[in-house]
């Protein structure tokens, strides 16, 4: 019994992290309609920004988290201004944007390796985190923070999209960019803000992963893949679907290894992706 509840808890924790990645990914996809692969490296940028501020410069931990998240957001905004917006102006196809984002991913990851070396770094200071017992299993304090940050980000994003004129503009662009522009929405600027918010969420995910396990420049690809799978099975472009997909993915891959060896965890996630692509390509919630 204990093993089952622990696996479920592990699944929920993994799901909370995937949800953060999926939220930003879906938000950006909704507005731009391309698979922004560079989304993964923004998690690494967030993690390393925090690492520099907190560990190397000795800044206060909360200030470091906030600044780290903002730096990831700015980096995402910068990628949009420097690369994607220029390509969009030239009416480049989404395939071109996808390839460009892969280029951004690789370049940024290499830059991180050059600056910080490729070594694995742990962010948390405490040894032997005291674990809290929940429902017959254990969770660490970091994991509690992860799940609350994830839920808070989701609610905050929902409030932003539904309750503000900015949110209205984002939804309008998601529906039809041409029309949105015709009614006077500055689509370029709104897209830039969307990149900032989405990337900041990825940066937060990166920092949390750093606390939970650790950071290294190549951490982005794994997170990106899980975020993308969560988005696709949740309904690509739909931020609520993405969150559902993330928790489903986390639970399935962690429960999946109950009976089979743990080394097949990633295989389980991709199997879930294939099942969805074949039987329910629109995802849990249709956009």
């Amino acid at each position, binding site marked *: 019994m204990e093993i089952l509840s*622990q*696996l479920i808890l592990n699944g929920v924790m993994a799901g909370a992290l995937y949800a953060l990645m999926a939220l930003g990914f879906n938000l950006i996809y909704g507005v731009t309609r391309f698979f922004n692969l560079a989304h993964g490296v923004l998690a690494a940028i967030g993690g390393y920004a925090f690492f520099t501020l907190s560990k190397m410069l000795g800044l206060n931990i909360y200030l470091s988290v906030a600044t780290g998240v903002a730096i990831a957001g700015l980096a995402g905004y910068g990628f949009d201004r420097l690369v994607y917006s220029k390509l969009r102006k030239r009416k480049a196809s989404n395939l071109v944007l996808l390839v460009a984002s892969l280029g951004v991913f690789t370049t940024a990851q290499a830059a991180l390796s050059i600056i910080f070396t490729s*070594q694995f770094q742990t962010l948390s200071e405490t040894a032997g985190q005291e674990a809290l017992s929940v429902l017959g299993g254990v969770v660490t304090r970091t994991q509690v923070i992860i799940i609350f940050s994830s839920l808070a980000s989701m609610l905050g994003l929902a409030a932003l999209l539904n309750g503000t004129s900015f949110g209205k503009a984002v939804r309008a662009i998601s529906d039809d960019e041409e029309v949105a522009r015709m009614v006077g929405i500055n689509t370029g600027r709104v897209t830039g803000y969307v990149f900032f918010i989405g990337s900041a969420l990825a940066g937060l995910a990166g920092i949390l992963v750093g606390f939970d396990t650790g950071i290294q420049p190549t951490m982005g690809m794994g997170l990106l893949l899980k975020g993308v799978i969560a988005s696709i099975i949740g309904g690509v472009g739909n931020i609520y679907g993405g969150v559902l997909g993330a928790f489903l993915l986390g639970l399935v891959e962690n429960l999946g290894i109950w009976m089979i060896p743990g080394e097949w965890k990633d295989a389980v996630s991709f199997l879930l992706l294939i099942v969805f692509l074949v039987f329910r390509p629109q995802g849990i919630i249709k956009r």
Partner: protein
Amino acid sequence: MKKTFKALFGVIALISLAAGCSKSGKEAGEANIIRIGSVGPLTSDLAYIGENMKAAVELASDEINSAGGIKGKKIEIIYEDGKCDPKEAANAANKLINIDKVTAIIGGLCSSETLAMAPLAEKSKVILLSAGSTNPGITNAGDYIFRNVPSDSFQGVYAAKYVRTKLNKQRVALLKCLSDWCLGVNDSFKAEFVRLGGEIVGEEAFPQDSRDLRGQLVKIKAANPELVYFVSYTEGTIVGLRQMRELGVKAPVFGADAWSDPKIWESVKGDGDGAMYLEPANKAYPEGFVDALSKKTGGKEINVYAPRAYDALKILASVMETAGTDTVLIKKGIYGVADYKGIADNYTFDANGDIKNADYSVREVRGGKAAGAK
């Protein structure tokens, strides 16, 4: 069309220019320089140990060159990053063999690197001498493949005997990464442990780059072992030990020689206390060596492999002193090395290019530092 042609012409001109330059550059120094490659992880998993070994090779080559080189020729070491990855190591070996025309390669550290380079070195008759790869498969990897570190067929057996008889544990769970080295050590431990009447109550594996071992650990905890034999490189070990503590896995852990990386114990702080592992027993280092190497590494702690990497280049140089740069003769020379007094060990090579002696010391972690076990 004209534009494309021009561009094409430009590219071809550039490439031939670059090729021409590098070629003429090589030939100029050919007569009085011996090139030797060095491959090991300089980034990624085990980079900490890889950089330490690189510094040791550098130290050895400085000493050889300042003593007049080999038969009056200076040696030049070309360092490549194997990234603890078979594909990267094979690329590095191809470059070293075909472009730099090296006589020998010191490396790799990870067994997957060495196993990937072995067929390339064997085919081109280039000497490959590893100071850190311990997978049993390297024993039969080829005539030109050597190592001056004992094979894991010794290590797994030694560890199994120690755990079964000295620590008196009966029920053991295995946790291992999926790499040539991890699987090699794990399998030899398992076979010997079962032979000695022990019981394997759980066996879990994880991809080498995985940083989330919680699923595997939950299952190991449920199997309730008396000890966990945990074979992993630096990064997997750091997260594994932390997650064990988090999930409340109370059984003691026993690891293999990759745990001689001090980075692990610095990173996990108290979570590593009580952990034990084996490492090849090195001799006491001569005076001056530790200082000279520390100067190269910027004061980083010297791990067990760096002195062996130093010895590897020195053995090679001593053989080349008589054999010259003819790799067939060098190969013969290394097989004939008997009781060579290195700084880490005394080496005698057997007919497979392995060293004959294998002695280990058991290390125990206390207060974030490894020391000899009681």
